[in-house]
């Protein structure tokens, strides 16, 4: 086991002592500067700065508890940061949240849905909340149900959906207003391989049409194949960020990740577990 990285830089009493990050990038789809968040005694995110270029397919990877979800929540308006802010297409999210949120589609991890609605009603609800007109909502709802293969279960209550179906309907409600940037926290968790492939195609198509996608994931292989940019997070900090090739160098992304994060055990393992 490696000891976790000390969340605050040595000799500093907190964010005041942290080095000044460079100014934000107004052309980026998402540009965060100096984000900090503390929950009680635990510093979940300590001084994260990151630029997600427009039109990129950006992967965010990190071990459990690295602060990925906290960081993404602060970058999408779900959680107010202690320090720092985020710019969405050059709009300061925490100063003008309504304007910034209109261009974002968010799939948060670990939240419930309004699951007493049917799949169709939930998508409609998400569209209406964004202030869309009826014809568009109805049309896009049908398209999304079709694309996610939920047509047969459109009239089933979401509470009776399987985990994968729930993920897909949540993804649909994040997309219905055709946002310029999609921020998806663990979008492939519990999704079956066929649906995952379909979702990947939809996202790739979206990116080639000028959209930006940010996904967090544990699955390195998936990120290496799917994303063009990647950031590695651990213990509340960004350890490396850039294009996938820059970050991984000569290695596979998985090996590079393990090198960066540490924590691999090179021992005999569980010798007693070998078959007898």
């Amino acid at each position, binding site marked *: 086991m490696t000891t976790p990285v000390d969340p605050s830089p040595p000799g500093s009493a907190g964010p005041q002592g942290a080095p000044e990050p460079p100014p934000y990038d107004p052309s980026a789809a998402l540009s965060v500067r100096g984000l900090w968040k503390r929950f009680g005694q635990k510093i979940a995110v300590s001084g994260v700065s990151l630029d997600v270029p427009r039109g990129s397919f950006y992967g965010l990877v990190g071990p459990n508890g690295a602060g990925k979800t906290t960081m993404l929540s602060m970058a999408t308006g779900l959680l107010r940061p202690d320090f720092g802010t985020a710019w969405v297409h050059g709009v300061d999210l925490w100063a003008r949240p309504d304007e910034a949120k209109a261009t974002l589609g968010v799939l948060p991890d670990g939240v419930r849905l309004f699951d007493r609605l049917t799949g169709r009603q939930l998508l409609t609800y998400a569209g209406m909340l964004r202030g869309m007109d009826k014809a568009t909502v109805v049309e896009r709802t049908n398209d999304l149900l079709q694309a996610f293969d939920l047509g047969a279960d459109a009239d089933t209550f979401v509470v*009776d959906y399987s985990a994968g179906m729930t993920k897909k309907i949540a993804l649909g409600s994040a997309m219905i207003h055709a946002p310029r940037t999609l921020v998806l926290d663990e979008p492939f968790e519990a999704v079956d391989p066929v649906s995952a492939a379909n979702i990947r195609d939809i996202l790739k198509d979206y990116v080639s049409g000028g959209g930006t996608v940010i996904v967090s994931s544990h699955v390195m292989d998936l990120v290496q194949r799917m994303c063009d940019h990647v950031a590695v997070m651990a213990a509340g900090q960004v350890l490396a960020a850039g294009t996938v090739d820059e970050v991984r160098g000569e290695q596979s992304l998985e090996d590079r990740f393990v090198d960066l994060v540490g924590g691999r055990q090179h021992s005999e393992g569980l010798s007693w577990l070998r078959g007898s």
Partner: protein
Amino acid sequence: MVARFLTLKLTLMGNTFRKSVWQTIGLVVASLYALSIVALVVVAVVGLGVLQDPAWAGLAITLGGALTVLGWWIIPIFAFGVDATLDPHRFATFAIPRRTLVAGLAVAGLVSVPGIATVLVVLGTSFAWVLEPGTLLVALAGGTLGVATCVIGSRAITTLLAPVLESRRYREVVTLVALVLVVSIGPLIGWLANGVEVSMEAEPESSTGMQLLPVFEQAAGFVGWTPFGAAWALAGSAHDGDWAGLAGRLAVALGTIVLGWLVWDRALARALERPPVGDGGGGRAKGLGAFGRVPFSPTWAVTARTATYWLRDPRYSGSLAIVPLLPVIMYFSGQSTGNYFLLLATGPFVAWILGFSISNDIAYDNTAFALHVASGVDGRADRWGRAIPMLTVGPVVSAATVIASVWVADSWHLTLPLLGLAFGSLLVSTAVACAVSARLVYPVAKPGESPLKSPQGAAVATMVSQGIGFVVTMGLSVPVFAVGIAALVLGGVLWGVATLVVGVLYGVLVLVLAVRFGARVYDRRLPELLQQVQSFP
């Protein structure tokens, strides 16, 4: 192995202590409360046995014991999900012989506040026979059998019904039935007591105890032969020297336990072989429902969603199911005193309750509220959207209640002022709810949980929030009440019209201002509101 289960249960209990100070305090308070009840019951029954007639104590033990068994058997069906710490499904992957599992679960079932309280009461009350050592021994043996009947029967029933209890539809129906029962228990007892009192007054010669004794004797004689009471009646039979009765009751008691054990064993075998898969079918609804009937805008989206939830989520529909009961309860309490004041107050009271029922709406959303935050729904849309269904249904329900109450009380001249009071209360309490719910959020039963289950450690927050809401509502209602009371006292159509006009106009004014205030607070605190519901236990 049985000891292992006991340790497991104790560890689980210990860990809840470590989780939060408030839960610890809650458990300590519950234990003290249980202990005081135990002491009270034991002292009363032992006193009855030693100082008066042991036969009376026997009656009390038989009837009380039968009620205890009934409670153990029936309450878990309604209070599902309350104690799943030792759900047999969790042991499915371990290679534990079923016999051991059953024994372990049975013993572990006793280790809880109600379990320990039952054991203590049984032990204590047996000493009502302390003057007859032989009977005392029989009483202790009978008590042991009685406790076994409680635990084994309870486990057998819940395990047998588990497949049914796991279906969402059924749980929702059971929840509504339980809510209605819980609400009607108080008035029902009051009504029965009243009836007894009335029949007592008819024959005033004998004292209450003497009069009721034959009834109790008859009841105990019957209950003593049922599975519920047989074990408890053993000592009484020994005291009477009724040896044939003793043998017969022993057979009934033992038979009950063996039967319960077999049922439990079978049900457990089935449960372990067929783990739960959730319900297959699930409900379906056609088309857009409420969403198809409203204009397309964020405000109306929230309206349609809220209206759908009022009908489909038992946590909401439960409170609607209670409303028609209130006038009935008030009617019975009014009938016994011949005073219809309470009945006439029902209309405004129902209106007030309805409005206030949306005062913690965001907590009911739980983390699904994240959709509102991510979409940047603005405060006005959210506040009005949650209020509109209430403002549509509320006036109809409260007007119907008012009209029903004046009809029964035959006080038609009070219709107008009461309507004014009801509409005023509805609007003001809805207004306060709209403002308060953006600021004060406290934990409630989560989506899918029984509305009867209130989260542990939330009592203080609930009381403070509701107290503040109550005080503010009362303060803001003063103008409506002033005119309303004047109308009730002075009478006359003009005052009635005045109450109605003041109630509606003033109520609307307060509502508009409160929504504006609530919306501002909501807009400012949007992420904090989400963080609050995310931090719920």
